[in-house]
């Protein structure tokens, strides 16, 4: 045996490695006797340098003491932990006590529904854009074939914005349709996009109406797009969102920027038809307004209310719940 530091380090390492794997009180006692006992390896080490010079002896002595203390602590901890686990094995254990509270937040149902719809259309080959909420009258109405003083404007009760600098005739957009124009003005066909976003109407709030709500607009423009493609695409979408069994039907409806105009209802439970969205073939006047030749290009557009889709899907029956921002309502949407 060499009375030096290296040996001491080795001894420390060996002892700590051995004790780690011991499981029974008996083995631990043997370990104690082996290292810390009166004739154990530590005592032996102390014996080995007692004849050295005082300087070296002091240094080794203090190091050896450290190791001794360290091993004693190891022994104490190990004995304690052994005792504890022994108790637990024999004792009753309640696995059902609640864990450390999970603090998961939530995503607003409108945004969840929006995201789900976006993904569905993305799968069907649509890109996703957004656009301004404070919009000009020109884009919100005029370019969409909704002239001033036409009764069709009654469909959109509008909130108007005071002039900002020299920018006049501003509105809070009453629908996402202005983005149809902006997209067609800035992109060459083929176009396949959806545009989610907030819309506003000047109207009283009740169980099914909110002055502040969200829509998703869709637009497809290409050389050979027809009504039959529109039916197929929107039906496919409805099945992605509401399930394979969903039935869809189309009826004639009026929106000045489409012709023919349609409305799609779905039937996915309880055999009732629920209106889901407005749609139609892009009006030739709208195509002309953005410089596309209606004899070459055609396309379809559609728009649906996100809250309405969410209400149908989640079974929420009062739209006012969406923006009351009540903790108990919101926290459900994990």
């Amino acid at each position, binding site marked *: 045996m060499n009375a030096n530091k290296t040996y001491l380090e080795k001894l420390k390492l060996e002892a700590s490695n051995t004790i780690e794997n011991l499981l029974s009180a008996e083995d631990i006692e043997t370990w104690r006797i082996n290292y810390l006992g009166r004739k154990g390896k530590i005592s032996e080490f102390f014996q080995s340098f007692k004849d050295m010079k005082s300087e070296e002896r002091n240094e080794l002595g203090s190091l050896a003491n450290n190791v001794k203390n360290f091993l004693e602590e190891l022994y104490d901890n190990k004995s304690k932990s052994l005792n504890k686990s022994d108790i637990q094995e024999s004792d009753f254990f309640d696995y059902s*006590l609640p*864990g*450390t*509270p999970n*603090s998961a*937040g939530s*995503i607003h149902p409108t*945004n969840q529904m929006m*995201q789900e719809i*976006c993904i569905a259309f993305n799968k069907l*080959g*649509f*890109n996703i854009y957004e656009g*301004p*909420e404070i919009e*000009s009258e020109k884009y919100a109405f005029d370019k969409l074939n909704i002239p001033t*003083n*036409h*009764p*069709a404007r009654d*469909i959109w009760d509008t*909130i*108007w*914005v*005071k002039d*900002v*600098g020299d*920018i006049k005739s*501003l509105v809070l957009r009453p629908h996402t349709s202005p983005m149809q124009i902006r997209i067609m003005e800035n992109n060459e066909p083929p176009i396949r996009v959806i545009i989610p976003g*907030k819309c506003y109407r000047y109207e009283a*709030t009740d169980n099914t109406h909110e*002055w*502040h709500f969200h829509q998703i607009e869709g637009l497809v423009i*290409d050389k*050979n797009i*027809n*009504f*039959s*493609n529109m*039916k*197929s*695409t929107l039906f496919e979408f409805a099945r992605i969102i509401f399930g394979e069994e969903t039935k869809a*039907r*189309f*009826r*004639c*409806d*009026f929106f*000045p920027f489409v*012709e*023919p*105009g349609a409305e799609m209802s779905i039937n996915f439970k309880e055999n009732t038809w629920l209106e889901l969205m407005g749609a139609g*073939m892009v*009006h030739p006047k709208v195509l002309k307004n953005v410089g596309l030749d*209606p004899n070459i290009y055609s396309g379809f557009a559609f728009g649906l209310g996100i809250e309405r889709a969410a209400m149908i899907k989640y079974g929420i029956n009062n739209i006012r719940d969406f*923006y009351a*921002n*009540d*903790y108990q309502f919101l*926290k459900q949407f994990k």
Partner: protein
Amino acid sequence: MKIPISWIKNYIDFNISNEDVSELLTMSGTEVSDIIKIGNDWDSNLIVGEIKNIKKHPNADRLSLVSIDTATDLIEVVCGAPNITPGQKIAFARPGANIYNPRDKKMSILKKSSIRGVESEGMICSPLELKYSEEHEGILVLPKEAKNGQLLNDLLSDDIFDLDITPNRADCLSVMGIVRELITIFSAQKIDHQILNHFDLEKEIIDIKNQIDFKIKINSTDCYRYSGISINSIKINDSPFWIKDKLIKSGLRPINNIVDITNFVMLEYGQPLHAFDLSKIKTKFIEVKKNNLEKEFIALDNVNRELNEKMLRITDGNKTIALAGVIGGDNSEIDSTTSNIFLEAACFDMSNIRQTSKELNLSTDASYRFERGVPYNFTIPSLLRAITLIKETNQTHVEITGLWDEQSKVVNETKKSVQFTSKRYKKIIGENISLEKAKNILKNLGLTNVQEKSIDDEFELKLNIPSWRQDLDLEDDLIEEIARIIGYDNLSSSPMQYAEKNIPIEKNVEYRNQTRLEMKAMGYIEVINYPVLNESQYINTKITNSSQNPIELINPINQDNKFMRSNLRSGLIDNLSKNSKKYPDIESWKFYELGKTYSSIINPDFKLPTQNYTLGMIANGLVAKQNWAHNPNKVNFYTFKGEIERLLTNLKINYNFTKNNDSKYYSKESATIISNQTIVGSFGFIRKETLLNLNAKIKNVLYAEFNLEKLFENITSTNKFQKISPYPQATRDLSFVVDKNIIADDIIKIINENPLISELNVIDVYENLENGKKSLTFRLSYQSFNETLSNKQIEESQNKTLKLLKKNLNVELRKQI
């Protein structure tokens, strides 16, 4: 608009159910939003009776004892109605009848009862008790022809279509329009039907000699046509039952035999009529014009309205006697003594009437139709229909004393023709149409074929558009007509053909979604607030020294909340304050909003105010929920900063922090967030005063806000692999004593200049040392890519750092642990 089926059935008969008819109309674009059933729940206890005898109730002045002949019995009942006379036919309810009780506002079974000591074996019903109309002043008086004992159901029951007519379909605002639709649908879809009566619109010229001195002049291009007839020897009276019945079921209140007929014709033909008392037009002259001589006008409803020079008026040359297309005047109204009348049927400019109606905030049955478009050629046929009805229903011998028909525009101008080709139909709809089918549908809708060409399988038509379909303008309009009559559901459906399927989502859309997921993972609940603020909210959350003007709404939903938000602060403060009040037991609050904020700076691309996405987060209370196993601390600046760092790290954004200057909103425990030298956000405790000013009864609130457009510009899209060292790390803890005003960042910057530093952490801070000093303890890890570092190497490089710290920041080593 309401139309009783019985009225439609005067013109067309069919064998399918009213529900099926409603479905067909709805699918073709004429939406039946409801079918109101009259008499649906009337059983055999509701029958026709005749009042035989009326006696005073012995114990009550206002009640009468009425004996009623029900053909089988003579029954005595107690009745309190004012309008009873012997000989009247009435609706009699026997005990057991299910009738509406206006007092309880619900249906109930009628019982035999004793009223003021007299037994009553049934009841004479008011219209409301039968749910026939809202009327409850008196009893419902039935027509003389009704037979005693006849079931009321046979006499009165009806289904009423409540129709939602889209703004383009003015032609459907009449019985005639709906009948035309039904005939077209029935024949296209091969449903058996029989046409019983026609609407004759061709009868233009009638032979009436003008026997009176009366002139009409159109003095505005907004009046296209003004027709009228004068009738003498009218006796103003109640209308006969069958007219009242149709008006009531259509939702109109009967007034008198003349007004009722004007309404009747309007409902039937879609042409509004107006009746003037001829004797009240003293000038014997009607002039249609705009002027601004009179600023005020009292209408039929006795309301005094302010007029302007843009409103088209019917005048007697001087004073206004009616507002064209909107409402008649009090000064020319017919009353019970009227005997000579002038009946007006006109055609006005749609947008002028619409503007008048909007400006006066007055929508009438007439203005509703005019602003959607009334055809120019319905005036005479409607007047003729009115003459027929007046003659048929007036007890006296009426005399038509004149007819006027002035036109300001050449009527031909409005005649137009539109082309229809099978080729375009195929392009738009995606399937073929046969010539026969197309012609049949368009003909039934009133279009006339003026040209027809067939080449091989293709055909081309040129068609004249009828006056009542001014909405038909282009070929695609005719395509819709055919498609909707065939039924969209009967058209084919086929997927789009396109090449690319894997469309990448726009980056910012993805980043926003990722941000939401990160916020959710950190326990934040997403809110969506209305983006409008009141003045106090705007002022108290404004960014300090911001020179921006608020964006203001002209007609906000709530007058107070007229400013568009420029940040998300007040919304989130409000969410926190309301929820923590409502749920006082919840100790940990975390909300966020990801929404647009608006600035008066003009975005040059859109020429619109800038509208950017902003992320706001707010936290208060404990870091997390508490339970037996977990005892979390309160949120503080550094726990919040940790969350911000986690968010930025997970979004792969490089960041650092600087001192915050938004001192009106934040307390001094706040910071500005920087990424690539740009300010991207701020966070910290909200100042107490701000919360007080906003009436938010909450304390110790942490808030953070990011400009997401700027933030997302700094996302580094890919992780770059960094080589890892095969040699071990060695760790040293160092405590420094520094002046209080030295920030940790300054020290960290210098330490990080040492190339051997692989990790750095601050593990202890002690603020209150003597001489204005504080102590910061760092845990530093040293590592080399070339070798295992020896103690000596570490000491040497550490000493260099310590010298630099001493020199630049006067940092002293406190002790080595």
